[in-house]
C-alpha cells in the first residue's frame, strides 16, 4: 500500500553539492502523490566516523538525526551509501545502547530513493526529453550494502528516448570511499581516472549515479581530464526528463 507521507533526508553531500538532486527527489515523490516532510536539523548520517572506527562520534551525530524522524513513516534518501548506513549499520552502532530499539525501528523505515520509487511506489514515468545516451555507475554501497540492483535501471528503462550504454567494469568502485579518497589519494585517484575513462568510452553524454560521493569523485576526475561528459544524480535526471517545462 502506498504511504501518504514520507520523510526526506537530504544527506550532507546532496545538501552542499547536489541540492538540485534533492529537490528533484522531493518533486518525484510529491508527483507520485506522496506528501514530503523535510525535518530541519539534518546534518550527516555519521558514516565517515563510523567507517573510521570513531563510534562515539558517529553515535553522537546519528542519535541527533534519528530524533528528527519520530513518525512511523518511511524515510527516503537520495543516496545508497547513507541509506545503507542508516538501514544496515545503525542497529550495530547502537547495539547495547538504551535507545537501540528506537533506532532499530527507525532503520527499518529507511529507503534509498530509486528503491522507494520502484519497489514501494511503482512509479510510471513518461519521457518528455530529446534522445540522449547515458551511462550508469552503481555506488558500491547501493549495490552491495543495500542490494540495489535493477531499480535505477528500471526507472531509466521507462524513458523512451534514453539509451542506457553499459559502463565498462560497472561494478568496480570509483575510488571515493569517503576518507579513502584523501588518505590514499594516489590509489583513489587512479580508480577515479579509470572510471572516468570507462565513462568516456561509452560515448554517453552523461554519467548517472545515485550517490553524491561517486558523482563528486567521477566529476572531479572528468574535469581534471578536461572531458565534457556531464555527471548527474539520477533523481535530477529523472525529473528533468519527465516534467513539463
Amino acid at each position, binding site marked *: 500500500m502506498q504511504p501518504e507521507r514520507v*520523510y*526526506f533526508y*537530504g544527506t*550532507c553531500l*546532496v*545538501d*552542499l*553539492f*547536489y*541540492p*538540485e538532486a534533492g*529537490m528533484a527527489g*522531493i518533486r518525484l515523490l510529491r508527483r507520485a502523490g506522496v*506528501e514530503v*516532510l*523535510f525535518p*530541519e536539523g539534518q*546534518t*550527516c548520517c555519521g558514516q565517515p*566516523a*563510523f*567507517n*573510521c*572506527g*570513531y563510534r*562515539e*562520534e*558517529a553515535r*553522537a*551525530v546519528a542519535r*541527533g538525526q534519528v530524533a528528527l*524522524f519520530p513518525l512511523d513513516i518511511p524515510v527516503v534518501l537520495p543516496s545508497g551509501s547513507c541509506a545503507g548506513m542508516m538501514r544496515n549499520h545503525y542497529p550495530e552502532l547502537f547495539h547495547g545502547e538504551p535507545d537501540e530499539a528506537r533506532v532499530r525501528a527507525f532503520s527499518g523505515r529507511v529507503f534509498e530513493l530509486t528503491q522507494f520509487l520502484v519497489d514501494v511506489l511503482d512509479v510510471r514515468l513518461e519521457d518528455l526529453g530529446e534522445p540522449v545516451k547515458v551511462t550508469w555507475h552503481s555506488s*558500491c*554501497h547501493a*549495490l*552491495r*550494502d543495500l542490494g540495489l540492483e535493477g531499480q535505477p535501471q528500471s526507472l531509466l528503462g521507462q524513458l523512451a528516448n534514453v539509451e542506457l550504454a553499459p559502463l565498462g567494469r560497472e*561494478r*568496480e*568502485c570509483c575510488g*571515493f*570511499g*569517503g*576518507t*579513502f*579518497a*584523501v*588518505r*590514499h*589519494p*594516489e*590509489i*583513489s*585517484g587512479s*580508480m577515479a*581516472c579509470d572510471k572516468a575513462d570507462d565513462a568516456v568510452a561509452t560515448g554517453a553524454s552523461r554519467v548517472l549515479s545515485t550517490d553524491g560521493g561517486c558523482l563528486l569523485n567521477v*566529476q*572531479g*576526475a572528468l*574535469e581534471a581530464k578536461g572531458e565534457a561528459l556531464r555527471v548527474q544524480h539520477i533523481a535530477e535526471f529523472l525529473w528533468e526528463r519527465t516534467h513539463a517545462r
Partner: protein
Amino acid sequence: MHAETGFRESAAQALGDPQIRANFRRAMDGLMAKRAAQFPDPEDFQAMRHLGTAIRARSLLKLPALLEQLEASCLRNGIQVHWARTCEEGNELILGLLQARGATRLVKGKSMVSEEMGLNHFLEAHGVEALESDLGEYIIQLDQETPSHIIMPAIHKNKTQIARQFSQKIKDAKYTEDVDELTALARKVLRRKFFEADAGLSGVNFAVADTGTLCLVENEGNGRMSTHVPPLHIAVMGLEKVVETLEDVAPLYALLTRSATGQAVSTYLNLIRGPRGPGELDGPREVHLVILDNGRSRIYADPQLRATLRCIRCGACMNHCPVYTRVGGHAFQAVYPGPIGTILTPQMEGVGVRHELLHGSSLCGACAEVCPVEIPIPEIIVRLRREATHRDAASAVEGRGTGRTATEDLAWRLWAAVLSRPRVYRLAAWCATRFRRLIPGGLPLLKAWTLSRAKPVPARRSLQERVREEGLPHG
C-alpha cells in the same frame, strides 16, 4: 616481515610503474572472467557458499576438539604431529627434523605458511637449500622476491620478464618467450632437484580430523613430487585448516578451485594418509605435520574476528579488489596481500604498525561479495580501524590504540561537534556555499583530493535553503 616504507609510498611507487599496472589489470580481468564463468547462476553460487561457510564455521566452532582428533588420527596413520606457537618455533622445529636426518636439500611445494614463517631464509642461513618447485614460486625465488599473490605468486611478471630472467639465471638456457619452452626449462631443472632432495615440504589445504588425511590442491604435479619422492615429507599448516570429515572437503575444494583460478577441478588433488606402507613401492618413509599458531588462537578467541579464520586461501578477494588490481601484491608489504591480508596482517602483527594498511580500502565490498566462505572483510576492517585507534575496547587485538594520533582524534571530535549541532552545521554550510570558490585548495584534504581531481565546488544554495524557500513541511 616488516614494512620499511609505508603502504602509501609503496602503493604510489607501484602506481607509477606502468608495467606493474598493466600486468595486474590484465591478470585480474582474466581471473574475474574465469571465476564468473564457473558460477553462472547466482543462486547456485549462494547455495554453494552457504554450504562452504557452514562447513568452515562448524569446523571453527569445534576447533580445539578437531585439532586433538586430527593429531590422534595422524598418529594412527603414522604421521608425526608437531605444534608451533610462533614462526620461530616452527622454523626451529623444521630445521631440527632436517638436521636429525642430515638433510641439506629441501624441495618445497607451495606453502603460504612457510612464507609467513620466513622459512626459506631461515633454512638457508643454516645451510639447507630450500628450493621452491611451484613454477610461480620458482620464478620469484630466482629473483629473491616474495609472492605478490597467494595463488599466483609471480603474477606481477609477464612472459617477457620471465624469459629474460630465465635466460640470465638458468645455466645454459637460451632466450625464448615461448611459454611451453619456458615451462620445460624450469621442469628440467626441477626434475633433477626432486630426485636429489633429502626432504620435501608442502602446505596443507584441508586437514581432515576424522581420517587424518592431508589434502593438497595443485595443478603442476610438483606438489606430489615434493611430497612423494624424497624420503621425508614435512607438511606445514595454520591451525585453522582442519575440517571434520572427508565429506567436508568436496564442497570446499569445489569453491576453492572455482574461486581461485576459475577451474571446476584442479589437475591434482593429493590426499595424503601417511608414510609409505609395508609393500608399497613409493612415498616418503616419514611424514610430519607442523601445526602453526602465530596469533591464530588469539583471532579465534574473538567471535567477530574468528570469521577471518574461515579463509580457504583462494585469493578471490585479491582478484576482485580494485586497490589490489592497481597496486599489486608487493605494495601491501605483507605475506598475505589484498583484502584478506588487510585484515589478517594487522591481527597477526598488531593493528598499530598496520594502521595505514587498514585505511587502504574504499570499503567497496567487492571482496566480501565474492568470498566463497562469506568473510565480512569490510566489517572486520572497520572493526580493526576502531581497535587501532582505541585502547578501551575489551579485546585481544594486539597493539590496540597505537595507531591513534592527536590530529585525527581532534578532527573527529570537531566533526562530531559541528554535525551534532544543526545550527553550527547550517552556518558552516552557509559559509561553504557563499564562499564556494574561495575555499583554499591548499587545505590538507583538498590538496590530496586535487592530486588527480578538480576541486569540488559547493552549490550556490544548499538543499536546506532551497527547501525552506519552497516551504516544505518539517513534520
